């Protein structure tokens, strides 16, 4: 038995994280490919600072959507909650002049939006796909009505709150540190906390978990609520970073975020997945976006390629294994 030797441990690690290792390999492979296609762009520091400034906006919702999908549900409404968070922040700041008040009320709005999804899904047993398509349009519609479909300038990037959330540390965008910190916390909670364990049980074997006293409804409501709060947070970060609120804020993130989670090895059937995988998934989607543009191919290809990868990933997950 070489289970205790270094090589044995390494083998065990690779076996346990084979999906994560596979996508990490794909990520490095893609990076090399894009590097070879356009070495000038990929040796340029600005490519990387741009990457680090936009990838966090994907990573943050990705973390919490991972919880929801592992718990056996889905949320299509988070892009609208990103928009809602951004809009509430903008509106409250406009009314009161206080970005702090805007931030807090935006997070509360996100919390309520998430709670609403969670309660309806668990208490009324509504299929989450249909419900959250409904809330997706509902919140987007509410933004459109109240903002009259118009954007707003939000020049707060140079203020303290702007510096804290989307400023620069040297050349590194601060938002990447927020994303990394949240990834570490959510990862530890998923693998080492009672709540994380119950998230897995909820998606894997809800019947067993219920029999043994796990409150699945509560687990799912918390997962939805966290996704709501942090989607709204992402909305605030986006408004600060762009110095602008657009009524369509967040719309592009539906495919990007869901595909990051799926590519990262989280099972579409629930019960399996990891934060590490999802983060690598997001990095991979990010490098695809950057790489496709940098290699001079039309940006129209981005959606096609990402969609194709998602289909392939889902097909792989669904092939019955012995």
């Amino acid at each position, binding site marked *: 038995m070489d289970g205790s030797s270094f090589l044995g441990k390494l083998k065990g690690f690779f076996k346990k994280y084979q999906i994560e290792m596979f996508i990490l390999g794909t990520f490095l492979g893609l990076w090399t490919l894009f590097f070879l296609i356009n070495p000038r762009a990929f040796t340029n520091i600005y490519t990387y600072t741009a990457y680090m400034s936009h990838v966090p906006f994907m990573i943050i919702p990705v973390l919490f959507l991972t919880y929801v999908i592992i718990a056996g549900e889905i949320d299509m409404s988070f892009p609208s909650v990103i928009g809602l968070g951004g809009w509430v922040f903008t509106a409250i700041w406009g009314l009161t002049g206080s970005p702090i008040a805007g931030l807090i009320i935006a997070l509360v709005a996100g919390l309520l939006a998430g709670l609403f999804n969670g309660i309806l899904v668990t208490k009324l047993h509504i299929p989450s796909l249909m419900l959250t398509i409904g809330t997706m349009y509902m919140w987007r519609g509410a933004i459109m009505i109240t903002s009259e479909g118009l954007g707003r300038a939000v020049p707060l990037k140079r203020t303290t709150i702007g510096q804290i959330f989307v400023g620069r540390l040297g050349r590194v965008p601060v938002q990447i540190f927020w994303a990394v910190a949240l990834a570490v916390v959510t990862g530890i909670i998923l693998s*080492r*906390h*009672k709540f994380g364990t119950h998230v*897995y*049980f909820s998606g894997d*074997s809800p019947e067993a978990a219920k*029999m043994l006293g796990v409150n699945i409804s509560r687990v799912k409501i918390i997962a939805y609520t966290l996704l709501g709060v942090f989607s709204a947070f992402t909305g605030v970060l986006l408004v600060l970073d762009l110095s602008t609120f657009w009524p369509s804020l967040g719309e592009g993130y539906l495919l990007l975020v869901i595909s990051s989670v799926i590519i990262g090895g989280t099972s579409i059937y629930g019960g399996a997945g990891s934060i590490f995988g999802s983060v690598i998934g997001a990095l991979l989607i990010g490098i695809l976006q950057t790489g496709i543009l940098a290699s001079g191919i039309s940006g129209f290809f981005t959606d096609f390629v990402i969609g194709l990868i998602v289909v392939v990933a889902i097909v792989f997950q669904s092939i019955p294994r012995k």
Partner: protein
Amino acid sequence: MTPKNWNLIELKNVSKEFDGVIALKGVNLSIRSNEIVGLVGDNGAGKTTLVKVLTGVYPPNKGEIYIKGKKIDNLTPQKARKLGIEVVHQQRAVALLQPIWKNIFMGREVVNFLGFLNVNKQKEETERLMKGVLRFRSEAVTPDTLVKTLSGGERQGVQVARALYFDADLVILDEPTTALSITEVDKVLDYVRSLKKEGKSCLFISHNISHVYSIADRIVIMDRGAIVEEFRKKDISERALFDQMKTVVKAGS
């Protein structure tokens, strides 16, 4: 030590009706401490309803339930578990994609004051149970092994280990040997014997008379919601039990 012949569980005249359909009528059943009671009966005899009444899933319409000599009203599944009643379900009470160490502690994790798992403790206890009581032979099976890679019998072993760790007094095994191969059945029967050795009581429910006969101290036959026969194992041969069962089923049809 608890004295022998001490009634751990007692059902007195328990009846259960669903919309006019009588599922249990006047059931009297007692299970003594450190006793294995085998419960046999045809489909629809009321075995599953009886289990659900015992575990607090269904409240009885009539009758009384005594646990450790105390009359229990409004039994709920949580209460039943607190009072030391554990159920081993065929396959359903395990999470297949999770490791054994998480499954054993499902719903009752060992956590610190912030709710973080005591992973080492859970793994050590799992290892101790696997090597001790369960005698999982394969070296390849560790606490980290995912339950989906275990055999049907071993999956029930995980549930037996759970019952042992949480110090259940009565372990109810609901059709534990159905759909298992012969070697797997042997494993499950072995688990039941280890439960007895650890001083537990068992209610072993099965269609299969020879499985029940090989481990039970006492055998109870149910038919159409009532207990119709009751034997101590030493008073009846397997053959006679089989004939008795056939007579009961025939009389019912």
